[in-house]
């Protein structure tokens, strides 16, 4: 399908109009070349083939751009010479909306950013709020472990979603259905716990919205028992598949230096061999008390990113098993009158509780002045929340550092020199969630 919306200056410009700095952005910056060297690289297109290039537009409505990402590709034959991602087609103004919502309501907003792992978004927002309130050390044990449980299960469901879309993008249609099938099992558990399949708003400042339902342990165990053999199916269907390996190995290679310079995190950074996982390196919740391995790749190619995610599902299962063993009894939220609404039963009895409840949900609670940045490891990389508070019940400024937004900058570097089909594999392996990119 041909495209459409004309975004002028945001689009890929013809080569003849490029300035030295722009060429540098495309080829030289991540290698830390000097401007002159980059410009020299950029002079290459003066060869007679220059007029043979064709600019095509992938997206914003294209089956393999994971929503509304738009890529402009400059092709020579089928080889990608340049690529420019154009984003903003899902810009929702969430950061502006976040300034209108109280800290109590903020979760509903952030959970819709990375819709593949909503619980991690809520978690980072809640942790940032708690840090501002100064209650981050007082969160009950059970709440911490519950948050870990949900976060890890969410990581699994997100990676399963990746398996599905990655399979679909490379033409393995069954894989798509299988990934969804397994994810559905996890969602079923979420629905039982939070009441919703997605966009839960379950992790809240001070703890969680509710306790785990009866029988949750069996539900989790069922997922844990089911998944290993399903993952082995994936191995048969994809990992060991010659076509699959051919399609992914050596495609979309990125070096550690490039990844660091571009600020890439998560599986992309780890695929280059850099061991960096916030769960281990800057532990939050109780991750320092569970055992797990940080999976790293070697080549930094699309296959490594696929394999890392597959292995991370297994690691998450390992963590979840430990959580099951160690889940303490206790309260699921902090008993701080300021941030926690009274229990439902007390509202019926006490007028005070009713007023308290009413105030918390209409006005919200006041948060001390200050600013804070909290980062956790989402399935896509480091998700950070920066909140500046002026002492009112709403954040003065709420900013989310979205991993996909940063990771997407790697696309031009991964794609250069590949084929159109590789471009699809590369987008898929970066696994961007556009809700998070555009916010």
């Amino acid at each position: 399908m041909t495209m459409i919306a004309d975004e002028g200056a945001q689009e890929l410009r013809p080569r003849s109009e490029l300035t030295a700095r722009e060429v540098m952005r495309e080829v030289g910056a991540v290698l830390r070349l000097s401007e002159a060297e980059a410009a020299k690289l950029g002079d290459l297109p003066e060869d007679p083939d220059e007029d043979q290039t064709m600019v095509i537009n992938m997206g914003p409505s294209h089956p393999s751009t994971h929503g509304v990402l738009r890529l402009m590709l400059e092709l020579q034959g089928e080889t990608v010479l340049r690529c420019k991602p154009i984003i903003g087609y899902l810009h929702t103004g969430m950061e502006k909306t976040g300034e209108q919502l109280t800290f109590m309501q903020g979760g509903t907003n952030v959970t819709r950013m990375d819709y593949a792992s909503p619980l991690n978004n809520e978690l980072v927002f809640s942790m940032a709020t708690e840090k501002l309130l100064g209650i981050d050390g007082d969160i009950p044990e059970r709440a911490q472990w519950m948050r870990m449980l949900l976060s890890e299960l969410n990581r699994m469901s997100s990676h399963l979603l990746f398996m599905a879309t990655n399979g679909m993008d490379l033409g393995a249609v069954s894989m798509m259905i299988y990934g969804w099938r397994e994810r559905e099992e996890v969602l079923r558990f979420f629905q039982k716990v939070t009441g919703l399949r997605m966009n839960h708003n379950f992790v809240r400042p001070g703890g969680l919205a509710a306790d785990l339902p009866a029988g949750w342990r069996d539900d989790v165990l069922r997922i844990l028992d089911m998944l290993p053999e399903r993952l082995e199916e994936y191995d048969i269907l994809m990992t060991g598949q010659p076509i699959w390996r051919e399609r992914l190995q050596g495609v979309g290679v990125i070096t550690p230096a490039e990844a660091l310079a571009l600020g890439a995190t998560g599986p992309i950074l780890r695929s280059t061999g850099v061991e960096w996982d916030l769960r281990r390196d800057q532990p939050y919740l109780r991750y320092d008390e569970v055992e797990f391995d940080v999976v790293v790749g070697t080549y930094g190619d699309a296959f490594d990113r696929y394999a890392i995610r597959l292995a991370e599902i297994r690691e998450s299962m390992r963590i979840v098993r430990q959580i099951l063993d160690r889940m303490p009894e206790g309260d699921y939220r902090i008993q701080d009158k300021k941030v926690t609404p009274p229990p439902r039963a007390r509202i019926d009895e006490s007028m005070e509780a009713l007023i308290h409840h009413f105030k918390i949900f209409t006005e919200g609670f006041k948060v001390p002045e200050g600013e804070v940045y909290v980062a956790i490891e989402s399935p896509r990389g480091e998700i950070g929340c920066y909140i500046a508070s002026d002492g009112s019940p709403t954040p003065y400024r709420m900013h989310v550092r979205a991993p996909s937004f940063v990771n997407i900058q790697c696309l031009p570097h991964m794609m250069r020199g590949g084929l159109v089909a590789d471009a699809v594999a590369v987008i898929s392996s970066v696994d961007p969630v556009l809700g998070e990119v555009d916010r």
Partner: protein
Amino acid sequence: MTDTPHEDESAPATMHGCPVTDSRGQVVIHLGRDRYLEVMRVLVDEGFAMCVDLTAVDYLDYMDRSLPAGVEPERFEVVVNLLDIGQRRRIRARVQVSETDAVLPSLFDLHPGTEAMEREVFDMFGISFSDHPDPSRILMPEDWIGHPLRKDYEVGSIPVQFKGAPT
């Protein structure tokens, strides 16, 4: 880091001649625009090789925020989060940017990954970054007027309408 702020100190600490504060246990360095690039470069040499985040805040309605002595509050603040993977530490830089001359040098040469972030800040706040390779809007359409995240920009809500409701 030569002079890390200590937990118990009351006098403002400094790092590379810039005041350093502690915000909920996190290290924050306050920079002026004139020393922005220079200090950032030094920080890279100290190991903060990765710029994880760059954003801005519009303090139009909150000019009386607490800042260390010697830092003049301006309307905009650009906030840069740096990460040192080797030593597992973070630092945050807050740069005051005046309303009248909302220009900062681009960090692109140091951290190519800030390219999209700086464009976003430009798009949302109207702070331009000199020497940025591609100073265009990123999230909003190119012909959009105004910078949405500024405090003098309304949220843009329209009254809720109920279609077909009896009037």
